[in-house]
């Protein structure tokens, strides 16, 4: 079952621009995580935001969480070609497993 739904499905921007991806989920959460996956590779954890947090920063990443709207956004500032990847939000299922959305495919053109 999939809980998070990312929007847009694909995003193409120029290097130096900001990229914003959104995620909506269905049930109540304790935290929400964002992951990155480079083409054909494994997932890398980017950032975790707890349900009592509204915003969190990590380097060029900024994550917001709105539990009233059951939504989160991931902002990548000053994007680089190396940021080209798929980005997934994930929440924790009842069995402790991560439930992922289908992802946003980001392409950063040099």
């Amino acid at each position, binding site marked *: *079952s*999939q809980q998070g739904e990312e929007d847009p499905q694909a995003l193409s921007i120029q290097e130096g621009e900001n990229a914003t991806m959104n995620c909506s989920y269905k049930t109540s*959460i*304790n*935290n929400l*995580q964002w*992951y990155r996956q480079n083409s*054909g*590779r*494994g*997932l*890398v*954890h980017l950032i*975790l935001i*707890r349900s009592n947090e509204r915003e969190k920063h990590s380097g060029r990443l900024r994550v917001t969480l709105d539990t009233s709207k059951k939504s989160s956004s991931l902002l990548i500032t000053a994007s680089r070609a190396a940021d080209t990847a798929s980005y*997934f939000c994930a929440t*924790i*299922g009842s*069995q*402790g*497993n*991560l*439930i*992922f*959305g*289908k*992802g946003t495919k980001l392409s950063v053109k040099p």
Partner: protein
Amino acid sequence: DVKVTQSSRYLVKRTGEKVFLECVQDMDHENMFWYRQDPGLGLRLIYFSYDVKMKEKGDIPEGYSVSREKKERFSLILESASTNQTSMYLCASSLLFGKAGEGETQYFGPGTRLLVL
């Protein structure tokens, strides 16, 4: 450094073969997970384990089994491979089953891309 390794990056098997995918983590994590990832479907949970010799079915366990004889190793077995099991398989591990809501992160291996002919 946290490390999850998977035995193969690429694997080609024939229909009907028995296939073993191995995953090893060096972080002393209790929980281990197997997912498959398919275009347009995202990540789906196959099986997971929260202790040695324990296993739980995920969303799509049919056609798969698992083995967890040691804490650091979690194996996914395709008893009789079929073409619809062609996919990317991802292993992950984490601490603290049941307390995952307190914020434990899952660490992923690089994935095994399996092609069944």
